[in-house]
């Protein structure tokens, strides 16, 4: 197994290199000089030149790239001009905020969607199945920002049950349980939007893969052995339906985080998506590069997890 993981990691190296080149290029072709915006307009030309050289911007592009990679590997992503702090000091706290939101969604969505999907497949065209089919259709067709706004409109502005936005009540100095409850209250609406969206596609996915599996010959074999329907469905059929679901699990993590870009904007949730947008809007290059890199690495880790998960649940994958 370790060798398999190692092989997958080696396989990823060229991908990582190309991705980093892409990110670097994207940032480099961005119009506007990377220092221009943030320099004191009263600087003389010499001072500007000195600043350029200090930042290594006079060097040839490949050298700049190598420097950037070298620094990144050491965990030095430069200074965020927007926050006036080293990038590596700000990103983790925002990632943590996004993570807190997503972890709830992830757990809820998976715990709910798998049993629902199975029931829908087993009782195809039943009332339950029809309900969830319509639900899924709505869920995948509903733009998350619009859904978020609707929830804010009804539950925050009209009914006042939940705060409109943010992560905690501003200016309050709540502590302990009260603070946690306050944060949970802020989390309800964005988490609802993300959960429903996730649930919609996960239920659909589980249902489809389960429907595929229960038609298979080995399910009939299992029945012919005298196993109960429960064992047939949950042991024989589900173990097979799990294969594509495990793959999806890997893709889901990065998808959740990147989907949160929109939702964090709608709910002003100070997460990684928010600072990415801020970085773009304020041309904070170091921060832009770091956040993009974060998303790309997250996707790669997700893919790797999917591969590993698949190798664990499917004996047909040759691990050696």
């Amino acid at each position, binding site marked *: 197994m370790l060798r398999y993981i190692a092989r997958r990691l080696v396989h990823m190296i060229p991908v990582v290199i190309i991705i980093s080149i892409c990110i670097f290029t994207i940032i480099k072709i961005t119009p506007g000089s990377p220092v221009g915006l943030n320099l004191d307009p009263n600087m003389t030309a010499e001072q500007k030149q000195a600043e350029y050289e200090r930042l290594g911007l006079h060097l040839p592009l490949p050298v700049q790239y190598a420097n950037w990679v070298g620094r990144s590997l050491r965990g030095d992503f430069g200074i965020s001009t927007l926050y006036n702090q080293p990038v590596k000091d700000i990103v983790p706290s925002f990632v943590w905020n996004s993570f807190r939101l997503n972890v709830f969604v992830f757990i809820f969505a998976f715990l709910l969607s798998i049993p629902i999907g199975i029931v829908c497949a087993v009782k195809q065209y039943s009332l339950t199945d029809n309900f969830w089919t319509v639900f899924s259709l709505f869920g995948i067709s509903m733009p998350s920002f619009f859904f978020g706004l609707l929830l804010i409109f009804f539950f925050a502005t009209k009914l006042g049950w939940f705060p409109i936005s943010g992560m905690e009540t501003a200016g309050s100095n709540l502590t302990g349980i009260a603070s946690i409850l306050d944060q949970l209250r802020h989390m309800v609406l964005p988490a609802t939007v993300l959960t429903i969206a996730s649930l919609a596609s996960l239920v659909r996915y589980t249902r489809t893969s389960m429907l595929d599996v229960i038609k*298979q*010959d*080995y399910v*009939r*074999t*299992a*029945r*012919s*052995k*005298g*196993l*109960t329907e429960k064992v047939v469905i949950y042991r*024989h059929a589900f*173990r*097979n339906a799990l*294969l594509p679901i495990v793959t999806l699990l890997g893709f889901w993590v990065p998808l959740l985080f990147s989907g949160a870009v929109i939702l964090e904007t709608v709910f002003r949730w100070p997460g990684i998506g928010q600072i990415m947008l801020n970085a773009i809007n304020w041309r904070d290059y170091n921060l832009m590069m770091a956040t993009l890199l974060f998303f790309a690495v997250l996707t790669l880790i997700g893919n790797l997890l999917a591969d590993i998960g698949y190798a664990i*649940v*499917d*004996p*047909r994958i040759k691990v050696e």
Partner: protein
Amino acid sequence: MSDKVLEVKNLKTYFYTDKGVVKAVDGVDFSIEYGKTLGIVGESGCGKSITSMSVLRLIPTPPGKIEDGEVLFEGRDLLKVSDKEIRSIRGNDISMIFQEPMTSLNPVFTIGDQIMEALMLHQKLTDEEARKKAIEMIKLVNIPRAEKIVDEYPHQLSGGMRQRVMIAMSLACMPKLLIADEPTTALDVTIQAQVLEIMNDLKEKLNTAIMLITHDLGVIAEMADHVIVMYCGKVVEEAPVQELFDNPKHPYTMGLLNSKPSIIENKERLESIEGSVPNPKFLPKGCYFNPRCKFAIEKCRQEQPTLEEITPGHKVSCFVACKEVE
């Protein structure tokens, strides 16, 4: 007590589709004696497989439904027992082998797990006992390295091996009846012979009755004691195997026999039955075989014949054949 392990009476299994009712099995009668092999022959789509699945109530419902009839297993009507009872019979007293060895084993469980499952369920064996028994069964079907195979996955085995595993699995609980639905059709000819031999061997050893479904008359000749021939969901002829081959009465049976190559007769050309199996949604009037029958008379186009015993043990459902005998 009767000597029949299974008696099927007037079995009717229909499928209800958007485009109408398909009478896949329409009033089938047969019985199997302890330790004997009953062969069921017919072209694809004649209801053989549905008959076998109906015995264990494995028909997917909807769209299928067993409409009428009795399936008496040692005197008990399996169509009337509770779900729990039928489950205790499946895999224990009656087990099944399917046509597709490649897809009939679950790809994510080891061979051992799949054999042990029924043993632990029906015979209440412990994990260890079941494993021992599984290895024993694998040896019994002539798979070498049984101790190793038991922990392997189906994809590591060839088709013939998998079918042997299926046989080992189905015989693990020493069933009184084994239903084998085209067990060798998907296999190479040489492998076919080996698998059939194993089945015959085990039948003797374990005194298991076999219900063998096939379209291959060669297999029937080798394995069966008694044969029924099915056409469009009905039994058209029934006889002991020797009698059927020597003295076929139904034109359809004759057609099937003639379409088999024979070295002895050295025929110029293989004969085939003209036409094809009718669409089950648009069955012809009268005898279902009449449009393809060389001997059809007016009566065949108007009325449906019934199964009549013409000589002891030999039944046929054909006006022409019955008249001949009179």
